[in-house]
């Protein structure tokens, strides 16, 4: 389809022929997504207070087109993991993430969401939400200032700009990445590693 459109104008090298239309479409596609990201109204811990402060009067997230914090994952594009991810909470977080429609993004806000942070050693703490769900932008800090959260949004916009409609995962054939919900057993069981856990538990 793109070929007919461009055939008569400027000579296009063969290997680029399919790409030019897509590139302009990419721009539109990325522009639309990055300017109307709807975060999920989802607070976990201390960082959530700073997240609320970001959405409040002083920082006014609406200037980015991101002001609509949706309480339902079905209407959200972005999950801001704002706080310590505990083992008891991670099944719910994974479930919420699975319920978000694609394209979906995830920001790990603060040290706790990045790696467990100061609570990393705790017995009920998951050492980083990226152990379970893919994270797009990381923000260090405990807690990050509201400006730091906004900086991460700018970074996320940068990242979205680099994506292409041809290669993004969610338009690929057979793409169905729903993450198995971890199980609360004697400890947290990552069901993707179930085989290995079983094998190792026999030898421990």
């Amino acid at each position: 389809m793109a070929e007919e459109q461009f055939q008569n104008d400027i000579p296009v090298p063969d290997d680029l022929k399919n790409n030019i239309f897509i590139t302009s479409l990419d721009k539109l596609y990325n522009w639309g997504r990055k300017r109307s990201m709807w975060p999920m109204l989802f607070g976990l811990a201390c960082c959530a207070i700073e997240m609320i402060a970001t959405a409040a009067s002083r920082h006014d997230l609406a200037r980015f087109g991101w002001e609509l914090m949706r309480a339902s994952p079905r209407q959200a594009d972005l999950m801001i993991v704002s706080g310590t991810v505990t083992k008891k909470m991670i099944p719910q977080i994974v479930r919420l993430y699975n319920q978000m429609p694609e394209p979906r993004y995830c920001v790990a806000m603060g040290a706790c969401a990045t790696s467990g942070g100061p609570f990393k050693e705790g017995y009920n703490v998951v050492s980083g939400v990226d152990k379970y769900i893919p994270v797009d932008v990381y923000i260090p800090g405990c807690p990050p200032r509201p400006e730091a959260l906004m900086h991460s949004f700018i970074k996320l916009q940068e990242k979205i700009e680099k994506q292409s409609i041809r290669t993004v995962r969610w338009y690929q054939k057979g793409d169905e990445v729903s993450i198995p919900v971890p199980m609360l057993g004697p400890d947290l069981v990552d069901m993707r590693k179930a085989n290995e856990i079983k094998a190792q538990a026999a030898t421990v």
Partner: protein
Amino acid sequence: MAAGAPAPAAPKPAVAAASPVSGAKPPAAPAAVAAPAKPAVAANTDAEMADITAKFEGLISKAPYEGVFINDPARLVEVATYVRDGLHFSMLSSITAVDYPKDGVIEVVYHATRVPSGGKPLCFKVRVPREDGKCSMPSLCGVYPGAEFQEREAYDLYGVRFEGNPDLRRILMWEGFAGWPMRKDWKEAYFEGETKPFETRWPAGKHELAEERVPWQDNVTFPKDFDPFSYTSKPDGNIYESMTGNRNSVQGFPDAPVVVDANGMNQPQADEFMDELKTDEIIVNMGPQHPSTHGVLRMVVKLDGETITDLKLALGYLHRNHEKIGERNTWLHNIPYTDRLDYICGLANEWGYVLGVERMMGITPTPRVEYLRILMAELTRIESHFWSIGFLLNDVGAFFTPALYFITERDFIIDLFESVAGSRLMCNYMRFGGVSRDFTEQQLQRAHELAFERLPRAIDELDHFLTENDILKARCIGVGYLPADRSVAYSLTGPCLRAAGVGYDVRKADPYGYYERFDWDVPVRYNADVYDRYLVRVQEMRESLKIVQQVLQRMSKDTKVGDIQAGKKAYNHRVPAGQTYARVETPKGELGFYLVSDGGQNPYRYHIRSSSFINLNSLKEMTVGYKVADSVVILGSLDIVLGEVDR
């Protein structure tokens, strides 16, 4: 309204007289009595301890450092009933356990308080063997209904079974979790050493991720031969089964409470109304991801139509193991962690902790330090109440406009914290015997501007904006009623207790800092509903402002600039062996730290008595009988912060 002045009381709501399940007399709480302006505060509990020792001859022996042992756990209820009715310690402040593996015992420690007169809490302890099967003792839920959650916590973390607790399930962890994590011999997956600082950090510190040290490359451990495929997970135990069938399972309420509307009229009771309709009961889960649960709280409500007939809480979704980490930490390390307990009012939490450690070490802070602490803590109270009122309004349905106005004001206070202490929320400002930084001239100037111009205006505006609002009144008056005696029985503290007519404020009841040197009152209201809790908060903001203004006026005269550390500043504190229960009045209520030291660099036991957590005990009784939409408002009026609930 000043303490002691009669309240412009709305019609006194009628309520079925509640009596605890055990059939004992209701706690002797002097209901609807404001705190005297200057309560006579008992400095110690020697007389009371002598009294019970004499009364229960042979059963009581003196415990080291603090309190008494009750030598026969089976007679605990008997003693506790006497403590409540005979000695009038009507509120159970704190229950916790301490593990002594060397002696093979777990010690359960109780602190009871007189309300509202206060004074030093009475401490009694019971020792039970550690072995599974023998590690059990009677529950105190019949005497003090507020014991329920704390006993469940002690069961969850230490494995002490409290026979007679109505719902003895794990509360912070999940059912099926292996082990009792707070026991001294229980090691977490990322265990690195018994105490900090860890040897691996210096002088040969090679960075290593915790993941690399452990078999599953993750923060998990599994018992031998664990098979994930055949395991059936039931993290909440029988939470749903326990809720089906029984209609009114509120403890101490054989009948549904009488619901009273704004004009003192009885609304149709749940039962007579619903029996005709024959509706099905449904159980609804709210949370842990819900916009109105103030974080990751989960409520399971049983509904009859729209009326709540039962409510259970599932907690622990933000349980980040403060206590376990706190016992690995050195004394100093714990200060920034306390900021993260109730992250709205970090400075108030820090004060509670440093107060406890200072008492054990025998440090007296300098006057400048005391002034600065009061200044910061009271600004924190104002800031926290701004936040909580803003979000109460969110819950009522005024989505975000009031909250936005108040967050703007709160940001000014937080900016001052940032410029003085270095961080907006996690100030890490207080030290043992000191504070980290003094105010500069510029910062004092800003504090003056806030205290004398901006904040009085903002609070007046808040009052003008909301107090007379008809919708707010319609939603809040008469909702969430919990009378004074029940509030005390449920160990409710903070503005919610004072809205029930009990003028109990730790700042007056068990004074700390220089609060006695300033002129301020404890606001009390008498209707015990959501609206009065709101009004108490507004009034408390004004009182806090009064304190802040006095501090600012007198600080330069009474104190020396730069005198911000008593003694030498150190990082490796050794705290003499002993124990203490230090408590402060945070914006949410009584925050206590039960600290045990064995003389080393690290706390042997570091327990946080958190007001948000214990206030939730009473949520069920406040909520049952109201509509499901009210449950959100009632929860908002309790003003919980999940960081402190789950710790």
